[in-house]
């Protein structure tokens, strides 16, 4: 009887250790996945890099002399076609 009890104890201990192994493995997998996100976020925060647009355009119109302002993500792209004006200059006289 004593031998049987000892065997049962060993089986129970083995099953408990197997459950612990499964839990540890699952925990490590979940932690690793969270770690990828966490370390990725920290790396993005510390060295975010910079985006570059492949096309950079600036729009000018004949009525406005202002140009589009650039942001941290590069030059702002324009949806309207770039136009230019080649009209001759106008001199205004008589002003004070």
């Amino acid at each position, binding site marked *: 009887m004593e031998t049987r009890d000892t065997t049962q104890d060993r089986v129970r201990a083995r099953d408990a*250790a197997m459950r612990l192994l499964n839990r540890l493995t699952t925990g*490590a997998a979940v932690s690793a996945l969270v770690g*990828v996100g966490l370390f*990725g*976020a920290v*790396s993005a925060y510390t*060295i975010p890099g910079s*985006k570059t647009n492949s096309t950079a355009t600036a729009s000018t119109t004949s009525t406005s002399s202002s140009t589009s302002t650039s942001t941290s993500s590069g030059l702002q792209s324009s949806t309207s076609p770039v136009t230019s004006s080649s009209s001759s200059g106008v001199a205004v006289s008589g002003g004070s």
Partner: protein
Amino acid sequence: MSNTLLWYTTRGAGAVSLVLLSAVVVLGILSILRVQSTSWPRFLTVGLHRNLALMTLVFLALHIVTAVIDPFTHLGWLTAVVPFSSYYRTVWLGLGTIAFELLLAIVLTSLVRGLIGQFAWRLVHWLAYASWPIAVVHGAGTGTDAWSAWLFTLQAICVLTVLGATAYRLMAGDRDPLASARSSFQTAVDRREPK
């Protein structure tokens, strides 16, 4: 998926791979030392060592795939297979390729251990001692964040942990529980040998 997201994933997966690989090395050393208690049988160390090694390969694959498919870097698949074939940081990336291939060899030979025999498996397994430092050097040389405080701290913790386990292994010596029994048996056999 944007380029930057791939880049961040590459860096995150690289850091996680380093932590996992360090844990695998430490567990391997502990299994040699036959560390055990009533609540922590020895097969638990070996089982966790094996599972984490497979997990390391998965996260290394994520690290490599996201780096290769990132259109910003143009690394190409050849870089992931052939060491020192990259135009970008040739030496450091080449070391990473070598570390990955060494780990792959270790895991594959462990899976077919019964076929190749104990001696060949042990010879290949010794490569683990080369794979880990090569991976650390790769991270320090290539990594965008290598000198960022967070990654530097993480690398320092990994290095100190593995060095501590290795030092303990060297100081503890052979923990073979049958060593004294084998020695007594050999002495008895020698005594009974006819002159």
